[in-house]
């Protein structure tokens, strides 16, 4: 098997002083005023005062042709930076990467789409930007249009499209790119679940044709479904390069080892946000025996043990525990509990236990969303932990399985009681009424 991507000692640094302490771009005036100081510093060799942040350091791996490889890791682990280097959007600071074959990069859905242009014009524009030749796009035009199911609206400006049509068209262009190596970033994070299924299906299709797929995601469920091998990144370094099961186990282990307290992920607004008037100081998920774990079987009780502390006085405390879909990241269910409605002074703390008894959620991975605020519903976020803990993993085969539940056909999220009555069944057999009753 021959190599598709060879990455050797790839590193990328950003200078923090320029990125954080100063504005990302300066006006000419600032530059001119700063010039004497800059020159002085440089002359004295003090330019290293700038803090260097290594988004990637010494990353080395090989990808073989036809492999579907997942890159996993928490936010800020360097996944996107790696993808940006491989797709040549930005340059590495050190190291080298060799790519054998035509690359198609899908870093977002609808790259280059312009809302004022018609569907037809956008197909050509986006196709050309993604690296297709004009003749190639023309040849596949009809296919793209029918895949996107927008035949009627092909000469309408895309700003008049529904968001569903827009995403379908955008994805259709990318799906017909036919690269030898496909680099994909969290495209699955957008769109409805039907669309995401289509995306995953197309990617499996691409992989099935012996092409290489390089899939960056923290959607572990999608990674599990698609990839046979995973690279786990942490702080810009390769922590594990192993078969998906092994890499994901290590990933989840690492997540579990990380204790959530008032400071965890505080600099990462995607995972932790809020004013900070109140903070979760401890989060754990456990079973009824008090043993901490994130894997449960259908029908088991999931217990959340949550502690908090107030930094400012508040009118009561309410906590929301919610489960997101592992695929679409939509919230699929939530529970809100008011701890107290009383006025509380700053410095107050507490600890509560919230049970989700006999959880009849279908097997899958469910990232957790935890929210704490005043008892009076307000628009303000106080502390939100969004996908900061490991996801809840629900497995089949609990104590009391539904008789009509087939784990091989896990459609939907919930198992709800259902009942069938055959009203009429015409055939050669005698007419008898069947009644099947299902109890939860």
């Amino acid at each position, binding site marked *: 098997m021959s190599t598709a991507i*060879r990455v050797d000692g790839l590193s990328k640094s*950003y200078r923090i002083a320029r990125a954080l302490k100063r504005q*990302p771009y300066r006006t000419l*005036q600032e530059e001119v005023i700063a010039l004497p100081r800059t020159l002085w510093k440089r002359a004295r060799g003090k330019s290293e005062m700038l803090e260097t942040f290594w988004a990637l350091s010494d990353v080395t791996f090989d990808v073989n042709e036809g492999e579907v490889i997942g890159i996993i890791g928490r936010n800020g682990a360097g996944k996107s930076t790696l993808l940006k*280097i491989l797709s040549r959007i*930005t*340059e590495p600071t050190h190291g080298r990467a*060799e790519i054998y074959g035509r690359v198609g990069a899908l870093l977002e859905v609808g790259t280059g789409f312009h809302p004022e242009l018609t569907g037809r014009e956008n197909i050509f524009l986006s196709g050309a930007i993604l690296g297709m030749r004009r003749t190639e796009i023309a040849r596949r035009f009809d296919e793209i249009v029918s895949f996107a199911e927008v035949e009627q609206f092909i000469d309408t400006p895309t700003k008049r499209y529904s968001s569903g049509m827009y995403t379908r068209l955008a994805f259709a262009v990318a799906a017909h790119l036919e690269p030898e190596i496909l680099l994909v970033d969290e495209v699955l994070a957008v769109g409805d679940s039907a669309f995401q299924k289509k995306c995953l299906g197309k990617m499996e299709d691409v992989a099935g044709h012996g092409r290489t797929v390089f899939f960056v995601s923290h959607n572990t469920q999608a990674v599990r479904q698609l990839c046979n091998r995973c690279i786990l990144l942490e702080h810009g370094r390769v922590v594990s390069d192993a078969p998906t099961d092994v890499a994901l186990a290590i990933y989840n282990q690492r997540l579990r080892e990380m204790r959530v307290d008032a400071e965890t992920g505080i600099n990462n607004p995607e995972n932790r946000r809020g004013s900070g008037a109140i903070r979760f100081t401890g989060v754990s998920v456990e079973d009824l025996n008090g043993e901490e774990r994130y894997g449960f079987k259908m029908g088991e009780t999931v217990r959340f043990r949550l502690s908090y502390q107030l930094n400012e006085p508040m009118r009561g405390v309410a906590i929301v525990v919610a489960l997101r879909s592992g695929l679409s990241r939509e919230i699929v269910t939530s529970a809100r509990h008011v701890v107290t409605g009383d006025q509380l002074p700053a410095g107050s703390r507490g600890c509560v236990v919230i049970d989700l008894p006999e959880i009849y959620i279908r097997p899958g991975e469910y990232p957790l969303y935890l929210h704490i605020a005043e008892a009076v519903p307000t628009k303000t976020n106080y502390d939100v932990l969004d996908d900061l803990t490991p996801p809840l993993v629900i497995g089949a085969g609990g104590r009391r399985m539904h008789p009509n539940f087939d784990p091989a056909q896990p459609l939907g999220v919930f198992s709800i009681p259902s009942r069938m009555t055959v009203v009429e069944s015409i055939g050669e057999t005698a007419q008898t009424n069947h009644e099947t009753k299902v109890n939860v």
Partner: protein
Amino acid sequence: MSATAASSSGTDQTIRRPTVVIEPTRGWAAIDFRELWTYRDLLMILAARDVKLRYKQTALGVAWVVIQPLIAALIFTVMFGRFAKLPSNGQPYIVFVFAAVALWNYFAAVLQRAGNSLITDSRLITKVYFPRLAIPLGSTFSALIDLAVALAVLAVLMGIYGISPTWRILTLPLWIALAAVIATGVSLWLSALNVRYRDFVHAMPFLLQVWMLASPVAYGAAIVPERWRLLYGLNPAVAFLEGARWAVLGASSITTGIVVVAVLFAIVVFVGGAFFFRRVERSFADTV
């Protein structure tokens, strides 16, 4: 970024060479014309997008391309030709002025669009790879459409005033090329600088206004006193504006000296701009 394009040589694995090598680039890099050529479709589609977008949802649509220079030329004719009685080498003032306005509008349009182009298309830059040069170059080509329309109007004006073209009209493409190279060269600098210093967003309208006043658009270069003529010729726009007048009307105060200065300027600013652009484009995605 150094990208070595090599045709993947069949299935033989032992001599297979990478399609792309990604390494940090050091120092100066020249334009990779071969790569630019493989992306020629993108260049044309970007130019076409510019043209289409400009007149979307406008009532008059492409008529703007005609109205704009025509009204400007009319005002110049009334103010400078009628009232100020500036010389036009014995030609109808409106034709005399329109020839220059058409070319100047092209020049200004390239600078204006290209100067801001990298910011406008920042989403592309951060999401997909292609030669970044395609973005400002797209403006160079898209503005040509407007110029073509303006030249058609010029032809009509010449017909109305009974001016028949001579062999000199054949040199018109050369003057247009000169304007294009200078405009592109300058906009390579401006667009690249604009990524880091947003000052140029504010400087651009001002720069264009001052530059137009200092160039023979509304008036002929003939009104500049002889002893200042060479200094005046240091403005590279003088060459292609007066050159266009010479090509169309045969009457102009253009000299070889002025043309040589402008051509040298064009080469220096274009080559310099290209190297500068290539040097800073590596950090576009991180800065923009």
